[in-house]
């Protein structure tokens, strides 16, 4: 039986970690993620978990300690945001290439400068090519559900990769909402035995990890790492199916909202998807054929599936909550547009960069995007690259 609760995103994640009861948590506090290690260290102090909590002196050290613990065979979790994730950068790549599963909860926050503590997706989108699996969350509920599934996905023998669970700083991390928590025993049963331990440094066989790798072998190891990311696609769906049986909540690579006969669609990530659903409902009530795709899994990128989902739209706006500074649209825009090539050709495809540094995203903003799309369909005239909500 699930428990109906009202929690902030950070509380939901901390309680999820408590239910998972990892072996090691090494963390360094940073706004707006601080509450996660803060609450969790209270669980440790109260003896409510068996975790070894390692208070470190920086995020680089936090990730290093986590990798060491995971390499030794421990089930490991941590949390960070923004500059904290940036300071972990070197170690993110090491963790992925060492094939050490661990779960990192990231409250998405803008990167400096100028200095800003508020939400956008610059931090995790910058880490998109680090080799980590990335799950994104619209709400506290999804952050909690993704966290629990992340353990199973990362530890699967065909995957063995670290997983980032991302949710919007403040908007989700500090807002109290309704959600359903699973029973402790159900989470314990779902995450099951630690699947890393037998294959790790302190496992059954002696081994060395993280060796020097020269040109004659590095490429083969990277190719094998890429295969693990491909394998993750099936594993993510398997774990989601099992989680649905337990929770009643359905997860996939992305959520399609009223896409069946949609002519104009938005592709978006995290909490803005919720606001966009509200707009879709209102526009549908006016008879407008609008839909929404909310990305849950950005790495591995579900290219074929997204292209298929967009096959019947006339126009699609792809929204990035960061500026990739490519001078040609944000990363989600480029990946989705590239995925559509040869599969969903002949569409109007536009880029919207929005919500930087915590700029509030309102239903009026989203209505503007749909209105732009219908105008593009009717007149054939439109801008490909757009900034939404910036003062012109």
């Amino acid at each position, binding site marked *: 039986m699930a428990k109906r609760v009202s929690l902030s995103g950070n509380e939901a994640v901390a309680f999820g970690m408590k239910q998972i009861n990892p072996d090691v948590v090494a963390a360094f506090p940073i706004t707006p993620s601080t509450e996660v290690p803060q609450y969790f260290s209270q669980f440790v102090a109260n003896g409510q978990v068996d975790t070894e909590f390692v208070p470190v002196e920086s995020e680089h050290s936090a990730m290093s300690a986590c990798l060491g613990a995971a390499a030794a065979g421990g089930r490991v979790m941590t949390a960070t945001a923004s500059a904290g994730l940036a300071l972990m950068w070197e170690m993110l790549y090491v963790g992925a*290439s*060492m*094939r050490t599963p661990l779960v990192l909860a990231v409250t998405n926050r803008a990167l400096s400068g100028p200095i800003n503590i508020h939400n956008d997706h610059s931090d995790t989108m910058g880490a998109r090519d680090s080799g980590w699996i990335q799950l994104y969350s619209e709400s506290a509920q999804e952050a909690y559900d993704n966290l629990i599934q992340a353990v199973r996905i990362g530890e699967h023998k065909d995957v*063995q990769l670290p997983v980032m669970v991302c949710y919007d700083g403040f908007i989700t991390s500090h807002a109290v909402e309704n959600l359903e928590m699973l029973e402790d025993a159900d989470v314990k049963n779902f995450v099951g035995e630690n699947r890393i331990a037998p294959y790790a440094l302190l496992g059954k*066989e*002696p*081994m*060395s*990890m*993280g*060796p020097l*790798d020269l040109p*004659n*072998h*590095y*490429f*083969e*190891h990277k*190719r*094998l*790492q890429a*295969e*693990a990311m491909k394998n993750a696609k099936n594993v993510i769906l398997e774990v989601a199916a099992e989680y649905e049986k337990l929770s009643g909540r359905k997860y996939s690579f992305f959520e399609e909202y009223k896409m069946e006969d949609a002519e104009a669609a938005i592709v978006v990530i995290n909490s803005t998807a919720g606001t966009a659903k509200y707009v879709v409902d209102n526009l549908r009530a006016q008879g407008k054929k609008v839909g929404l795709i909310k990305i849950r899994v950005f790495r591995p990128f579900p290219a074929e599936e997204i292209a298929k989902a967009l096959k019947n739209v006339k126009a699609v706006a792809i929204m990035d909550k960061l500026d990739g500074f490519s001078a040609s649209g944000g990363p989600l825009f480029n990946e989705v547009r590239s995925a559509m090539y040869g599969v969903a050709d002949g569409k109007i495809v536009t880029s919207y960069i929005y919500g930087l540094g915590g700029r509030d995203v309102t239903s009026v903003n989203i209505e503007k995007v749909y209105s732009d799309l219908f105008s593009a369909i009717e007149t054939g005239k439109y801008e490909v690259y757009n900034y939404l909500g910036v003062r012109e």
Partner: protein
Amino acid sequence: MSNRKVNITPDTTWKETTPGGVIVDAGNAEDFKTGDWRSMRPVWHEDKCKHCLLCWVVCPDNSIKVENGKFVGFDYDHCKGCGVCTKQCKFGALDFVPEE
């Protein structure tokens, strides 16, 4: 080499290699013959050797072969020719000569 769990060679493909380059065979450094790095070669004069085994102590590559507490020869497959053993020998039992 045949007793290795994973036989890594210069031709190993990505499907055959280990995740992240994990080394699953303890002591597989022995498979890599570092002896061909050598330009100078230690030579043993059995008649002057007291079998004090200080050469074994200082050798960074475990290339001094010992049996029953006595020096019996060099492991030329792995000796890189650093000459540390010859430098420390107090009895003139180890010479250091150019490779031919």
